[in-house]
């Protein structure tokens, strides 16, 4: 009886771990797409709206979905408190939100590089930087989609099967 309960717990735990890994794989392309949308809106705010950066960030935090919205919210708050440079505020809010994103180190570098250029130049130069970041994000997104298609199913079945193997070995 206890054996069966233990077996069930092991199966549930490993299957859950597999599904969690698969979820992380499927979250990455979605968050990259959201980031691209955020970049486009930021470009629109800068080019056509001539909006100051903190208002633009505030607007973006309202438009975006959950993890990214709190990133732009923190960024706007840091800018409004007015004690830091844009780069520091961007980096700090990026580090703060990073744990809840499913992105990789490469994306972190791209975003923090973008933060360095933010608010330093005229709007045409800024637009070029946004274009560059978009191109980088595009490349990462194809990579992420590729990985998702390849490994998502594998993670699910791998979790379940490794649980099964563990049970048979321990029986």
């Amino acid at each position, binding site marked *: 009886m206890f054996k069966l309960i233990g077996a069930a717990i092991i199966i549930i735990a490993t299957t859950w771990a597999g599904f969690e890994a698969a979820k992380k794989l499927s979250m990455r392309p979605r968050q990259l797409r959201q980031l691209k949308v955020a970049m486009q809106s930021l470009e629109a705010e800068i080019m056509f709206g001539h909006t100051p950066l903190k208002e633009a960030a505030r607007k973006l935090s309202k438009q975006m979905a959950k993890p990214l919205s709190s990133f732009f919210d923190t960024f706007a708050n840091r800018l409004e408190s007015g004690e830091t440079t844009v780069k520091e505020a961007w980096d700090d809010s990026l580090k703060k939100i990073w744990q809840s994103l499913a992105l990789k180190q490469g994306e972190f570098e791209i975003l923090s590089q973008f933060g360095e250029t933010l608010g330093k130049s005229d709007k045409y130069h800024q637009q070029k930087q946004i274009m560059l970041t978009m191109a980088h994000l595009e490349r990462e997104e194809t990579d992420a989609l590729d990985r998702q298609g390849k490994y998502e199913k594998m993670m699910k079945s*791998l979790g379940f*099967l*490794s649980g099964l193997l563990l049970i048979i*070995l321990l029986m």
Partner: protein
Amino acid sequence: MGIDVDIIFKIAGVGLVVAFLHTILDQVGKKEYAQWVTLFGFIYILFMVASVVEDLFQKIKSVFLFQ
């Protein structure tokens, strides 16, 4: 005899799961991991079989070599 049947089922189960793992890892192009998994499963089963065969040898020894 009861123990023997148990061990056969266990070997069958390990074989089944390892075969599944091999196929899945092979499909996503992780051939080297697939081979390692199969190798470890094989070694594990080999140890179980070795213990059974050892029992058999002990029995033969006790039958033919009177001590």
